[in-house]
């Protein structure tokens, strides 16, 4: 092996930093020109690291649960009283719900209603936060041959979580409804008026473009609309709340801060592709 002289080695050592700086500018250029390549690289890195997260998910989940339980021991009596109250209330609602459901079935039968097709779904564990600083997203760990596609819809046990934006061989990324780039067509259940739910990267996405005269009411339920064929109708999204500045926001039903298991539904929709991610070119080519 040829060993360069000490002077030459020093000169080379001084040069590496500028060369690397130039390389990072090159990287920026590549990122602007070829978004698909960057997306592939990202999902490949996540695919490679997914086994680590999948292995960590269970013990960490157990640990979190233990902490919650220990904290819960504190207010056990109050919690019990509250739950008994709530149970009472929910039992009343259950009977109302069952009556309405039966009535609904009868009415649909009388109208010869064509039921919506049952959607198939895949259940997946959330293994990591995949948002970075400027986005709100989570990473799902899925088995091989999972059959997930971009644009499919993720729900937890309570409500809408978001949509799939990237799919790898073992992982998929879900952009949450709270992300800055997320736009969901919704219906305000009370007035049946349409609006757009826009994420802000904060915990409460905002309502935009509701029709004149039907102002969103505090506590009103918000569900998805089938407009634009991106979502099926009537998935639970959240409830309206007004913030301190009088701007209507939505308190999501889904527990977006503590996602554990989500179901990804295939409704066979071919509407708009899932939104592009913030910290990337805004007009990715397809």
């Amino acid at each position, binding site marked *: 092996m040829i060993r360069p002289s000490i002077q030459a080695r020093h000169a080379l050592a001084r040069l*590496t*930093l500028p*060369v*690397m*700086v130039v*390389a*990072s*500018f*090159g*990287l*920026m*250029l*590549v*990122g*602007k020109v070829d978004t698909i390549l*960057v997306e592939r*690289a*990202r999902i490949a*890195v*996540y695919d490679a*690291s997914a086994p*680590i*997260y999948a292995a*960590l*998910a269970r013990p*960490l*989940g157990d640990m*979190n649960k233990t902490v919650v339980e220990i904290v819960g021991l504190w207010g056990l009596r109050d919690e019990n009283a509250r739950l008994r109250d709530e149970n009472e209330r929910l039992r009343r609602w259950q009977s109302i719900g069952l009556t309405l459901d039966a009535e609904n079935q009868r009415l649909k039968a009388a109208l010869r209603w064509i039921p919506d097709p049952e959607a198939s779904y895949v259940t997946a564990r*959330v*293994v*990591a*936060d*995949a*948002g*970075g*600083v*400027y*986005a709100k*997203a989570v990473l799902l760990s899925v088995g091989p041959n999972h059959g997930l596609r971009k644009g499919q819809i993720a729900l937890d046990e309570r409500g809408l979580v978001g949509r799939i934006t990237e799919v790898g061989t073992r992982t998929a990324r879900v952009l949450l409804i709270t992300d*800055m780039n997320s736009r969901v067509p919704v219906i305000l259940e009370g007035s049946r008026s349409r609006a757009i739910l826009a994420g802000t*990267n904060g915990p409460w996405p905002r309502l935009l473009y509701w029709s004149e005269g039907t102002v969103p009411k505090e506590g009103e339920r918000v569900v998805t609309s089938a407009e634009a064929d991106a979502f099926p109708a009537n998935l639970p999204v959240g409830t309206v709340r007004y913030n301190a500045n009088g701007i209507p926001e939505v308190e999501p039903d889904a527990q977006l*801060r*503590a996602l554990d298991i989500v179901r990804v539904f295939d409704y066979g929709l071919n509407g708009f592709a899932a939104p592009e*991610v*913030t*910290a*990337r*070119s*805004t007009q990715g080519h397809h």
Partner: protein
Amino acid sequence: MALSDRIPGVRPRLTVGRRLDIVWRHAFPGTTSFLLMLVSLAPFGLWGQAALLPTVALTCVWFWSLFRPAAMAPPVVFLIGLLLDLLGFLPPGVGALTMLTTHGIARWLRRFLARQGFTVVWLIFITVACGIAAMNWALVSLLTFSLVPVGPVLFQAGLAAAMYPAVAIPLMFAHRSIADPDQA
């Protein structure tokens, strides 16, 4: 260059085990930085956890560039920046450039900071973290043609400032023991 090359004396023969030990000690800063970055994304369920990844990357690059620049060479810094871009969903190049800038500042201030105590190094680090956060925000805004919110960046800088001792103190112990090539 390890101490053994500079000071004459009798020392153990270079067996395979000892060679591996030396290589490991040289690779320690880069390897642990990568691992810490990967672990920072694990589902701990912490609020604001997304800011942990840039914090860990920044602290590792700053600390090793200052105390062991030979092991945290620009190509290693570049790779850490690239991983930060890919894992942190930043536009590619932003993480690489900010990490290289951190490395450059640390190398430039090295002679001065080597004589200072922990608190001074920490205070300078806070200034650097704020500057890097501002640079990060400006680059992301420029590359996405949009004004991204300032909040997360401020939070990131604050977290980096607050978390510095938690990351740097274990690294300092490692630097003096298991990562020191002279003790191989």
